[in-house]
């Protein structure tokens, strides 16, 4: 796992959580949208927080695609669930929400799960699968490097 790959995984976690928090902040300031006036959602798109949230979520998607290009899905998902912890901490210090003992327990479980997966390889390929995927590969990176 080199620096670029670590940064990509961190990007997935950070962009997703910051994007959600920015969107939540923008939409809360905007207020509830009723079904009768659903077109008012378009004026929410002008809120700077909503715009920031959408940009961050786009950045999340790019780093997510990039992460999946070099690591297994069952590696990327647990590894980037650290974002949930970041989001809980952002909610506490930035949105001033309370973190209950139940949430702290959840944060601990996520951290343990990430610890488990991080100690293994990022990419697992058997021969059958490599042959299956080989058809369309543009280059031949050293598979299994992590």
């Amino acid at each position, binding site marked *: 796992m080199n620096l*670029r*790959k670590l940064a*990509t995984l961190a990007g997935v976690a950070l962009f997703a959580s910051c994007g959600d928090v920015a969107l939540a902040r923008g939409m809360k300031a905007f207020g509830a949208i009723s079904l009768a006036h659903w077109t008012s959602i378009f004026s929410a798109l002008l809120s700077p927080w909503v715009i920031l949230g959408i940009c961050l979520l786009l950045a999340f998607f790019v780093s*997510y*695609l*990039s992460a*999946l*290009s*070099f690591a*297994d*899905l*069952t*590696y*990327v*998902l*647990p590894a980037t*669930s650290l974002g*949930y*912890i970041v989001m*809980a901490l952002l909610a506490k210090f930035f949105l001033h929400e309370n973190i209950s003992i*139940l*949430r702290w*327990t*959840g*944060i*601990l*479980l*996520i*951290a*343990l*799960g*990430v610890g*488990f*997966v991080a*100690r*293994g390889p990022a990419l*697992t390929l*058997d021969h*059958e*699968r490599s042959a*299956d*995927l080989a*058809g*369309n*590969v*543009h*280059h031949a*990176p050293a598979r299994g490097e992590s």
Partner: protein
Amino acid sequence: MKHLYTWVSILAVVLFSTVGDVLISRAMKRVGDLGHLFKDHGLLAVSKAMFTNATLWAGVFFMALGFFSLMTALSWNDVSLVGPASASLTFLSNAFAAKLFLRERVDRRRWMAALLVAAGVALVAA
């Protein structure tokens, strides 16, 4: 009936997002490491590999279906049930799907990670 609708839409979220994640993961494995591709062939090659990838688009389509099911589920029940239930179940279904359809080696370590994270997410988001 409200509970039935809620759980059916939660299962729809789980199903659609899992299919989306598997398709996107499969597409990106075929493209190969984007970092190498960028270094060797430049941004144009990366964009071409992405935009011409039908599997990737199919994955994005299923992700969108998952998002709309989430909106539907939220209209039937509270975010404190729908959010953690769908996020947490998706971690588990993704582990099954990755083993079955992506042939990833999901060993005991990865099962433990998926279970711990699913439980943790359920608690954090509750």
